């Protein structure tokens, strides 16, 4: 079964990934991306917002429409996107893995459709799976590759391995994970990744059961990854505490990411996941 539905793929044709660097830096005025590079291909207009560089206003359009627009040039540095997918066993919970694959496929599709360079890594048992291609013809190949992936063995951490997987020339990194690692690990990873000025984006997926545990009674909870077990008598009060802890954890993830200048979006499990995910990414202005 294909990860992306045809309708999704059709929708995706109208979107492209927003280069965050530009958005974030545009206002500050650093790394002005109006490099007057080799090609001055006119790409698109966008609405003027206070703080944008005045030099980039297209006065012709203004004359005609009386509205301020900024010209965008194709010499925006070619996006070299890297996607990292978490393949630790904790991902294999309910629909989580499927959704993670779908997210990876989604961004891969977007990147390849717009002729940007896509690289992809995912740890597999015994090896590291890599993919590096550019061009629309590889869209379906990429999807197939993602679909084939399987889980790694237990007890292999994920976050600490990210930094080494990213190629040096990537300027946007999308990390698809479930965030179920200690906050200290996450902080370390954020620190590490912040060394290079890159656009790091985390996509946190989760499963229905994680969000709303529906088990009540006496359980021996076994961790999928570490195989640690815990005897718990699950009562509504316990569920509440669980939810509070979980919420706190993810809040902390968000804070940490923001502190180091990274972006973080949650895509919870829900029916019609792809449309919801798309909607979420649009909302957070990752894609437009």
């Amino acid at each position, binding site marked *: 079964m294909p990860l992306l539905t045809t309708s999704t793929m059709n929708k995706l044709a109208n979107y492209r990934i927003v280069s965050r660097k530009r958005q974030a830096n545009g206002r500050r005025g650093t790394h002005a991306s109006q490099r007057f590079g080799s090609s001055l291909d006119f790409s698109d207009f966008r609405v003027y917002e206070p703080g944008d560089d005045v030099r980039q206003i297209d006065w012709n359009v203004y004359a005609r429409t009386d509205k301020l627009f900024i010209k965008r040039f194709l010499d925006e540095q070619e996006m070299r996107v890297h996607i990292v997918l978490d393949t630790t066993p904790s991902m294999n919970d309910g629909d989580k893995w499927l959704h993670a694959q779908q997210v990876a496929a989604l961004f891969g599709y977007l990147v390849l459709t717009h002729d940007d360079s896509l690289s992809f890594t995912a740890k597999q048992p015994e090896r590291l799976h890599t993919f590096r291609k550019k061009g629309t013809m590889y869209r379906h190949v990429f999807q197939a590759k993602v679909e084939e992936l399987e889980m790694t063995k237990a007890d292999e951490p994920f976050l600490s391995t990210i930094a080494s997987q990213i190629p040096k020339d990537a300027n946007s990194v999308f990390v698809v994970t*479930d965030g179920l690692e200690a906050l200290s690990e996450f902080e370390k990873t954020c620190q590490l990744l912040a060394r290079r000025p890159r656009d790091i984006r985390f996509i946190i997926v989760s499963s229905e059961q994680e969000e709303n545990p529906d*088990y009540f009674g006496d359980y*021996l*909870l076994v*961790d999928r990854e570490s195989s640690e077990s*815990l*005897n718990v008598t699950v009562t509504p009060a316990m569920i509440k505490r669980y939810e509070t802890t979980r919420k706190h954890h993810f809040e902390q993830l968000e804070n940490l990411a923001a502190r180091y200048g990274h972006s973080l979006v949650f895509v919870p499990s829900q029916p019609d996941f792809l449309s919801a995910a798309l909607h979420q990414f649009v909302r957070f202005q990752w894609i437009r």
Partner: protein
Amino acid sequence: MSFLQWTNSWTLIFPLAVLLYYFFRKRYTPMTISSTLFWESFMNETKASPYFEKLQKNALLFLQLLALFLFVMLVMKPYSPATTATGQDIWLVLDTSASMETREGDTTWFETQKTRMRALVDSHEGATFTVVTTGDTPTFVVQNSTNTSAVNAAITAIPLQYEAEQLKKTVEFVKAGLPKSGAHVYVLTDAAPRDLITFDQENVAWRVENRPTELGNIAIKQFGVSQLEDETNAIVEIQNDTKEVATGTLEFLDLDGQSLGTTEYEVPANERQIVSAKLPATGSFYEAVLSSEDAFEADNRMTATLYRPVLKVAVDDQIHPTIQKALTAIGADVVTVPTDDLALRPEGELLITSNEELLDDTAHPILLVGRGENEQLEAAGVIEQKKPFSNYVDLSDVYVQAVYEPFPEATTIAAIGEQPFIQQFENGNLAVLASIDQTDWPLHPSYPLFLWAAMEQFSEDAETTGSYFPNDRVTLASQYGEWSIYDRDGEFISDVASDSTMTAPPAPGFYQLTDGDASKHFTVMLEQQEKQLGFEKSYEIGTYEAEGTAEVDRSLVPIGAVLLLLVLLTEWEVQRRRGFTT
């Protein structure tokens, strides 16, 4: 193999508890979830100090060590010297006579005194208790015991004996048994007078507790019945010891409790009166019951037995003269009569003769001595008892030279070798198959005894063996070795001893002696002195001081055992949480 302390088998509760715990333990269903990260974070919130953590890790080991250590301690039987350090000797004497059974509200004075005894026991923890009951032979219920629960149990179990208390005897009995170090004696009775105790012992305190209130009593003092042709004449003497006139109905019952008749009575205060009534003649047993309600009910009924008149004896003048002499010696009512006049004697008289023809006489019991002119056979040997006849007749020394031919239809009671000597017919008639002058029997004590026993046999009421007082020791005349005593309702009371002695049951009433086929009845009556309720004030004589202290050690074993159980359960719980390694 047996066990010294069966009482400690309550510890079986330990393995049972563990077993139950196992069956009701929580079963945790294993479930794999993506991450226990969140669960763990708040499950392990107790930030333990390093020592505590070490304890937790080795919890199982520590618990097992603790359990074993406790076990070692228990085996050494720990005890703690208790603070109750009074080496008191306390004697409790309980009056078990009938007059103690007066009604006190919902209970009786007897029970009230028992409650008082238990209270005394409970309030003197650590003392040594001895409990004695009254009677003709005072008995120890408990002797020198410090176990209060055992003493209390024994007190609760003491039955009312109805026997007159014989307090003087009991007091002498107690005095003889008191320890040299003295004691505190409590006498719990109803109306013991001040002069009961002569104070001649050192360091002995006596406290006599009598009934605090004076009670009026209405009693049947005497009840007699006599036969008047085809009616029975009943005479009852009623004593009214109350301040009011006693009126009511006197009812007469037979052995089965059926009413035979009633009569009214009216007795003025503090007087006695005789009431008579005519009853239909049914059997030999009668019971008279007063309808007045007073506090003491046991004396409101009495039984009476109709006795047959004393057996008269008529002796044939042809018979050996020693017979008459022997009968006179034992005090029988004897008359010598010519042979032909014997048949004319009044009905029921015992006839002693050698004339065989009289055996057909149904109006009189017959004792045949010799068979007259019939042939005699030589006898050689010792007389042997073939059938039990009487406890008092021992024929082994008697020499018999010749015997007559036996009667084929009679059973042999005594024989010489193969030849019968004494026989008994089905109708009870006896035959001595020898002529007295052919024996040396008159020289033996068994001669008059035999005649007496024969008389007793004939005069013995087929129905009764007599009336007795409670707890009387009685030797029954005939052989009742295998018989048992039952009460009026058919409840088994006791067995007669193999030597025909029995102890009369304590409670007044009708009883039945039976061996399964034949049965006889007897009655038990209250003694006259028990039909009066006296009134005396309680008093104390003498002082007592306990010497020294006695240490009662309280065993800590039960507490320790419970602790051990708790440790075992904790161990179990810890193991369960850790997961069993099966």
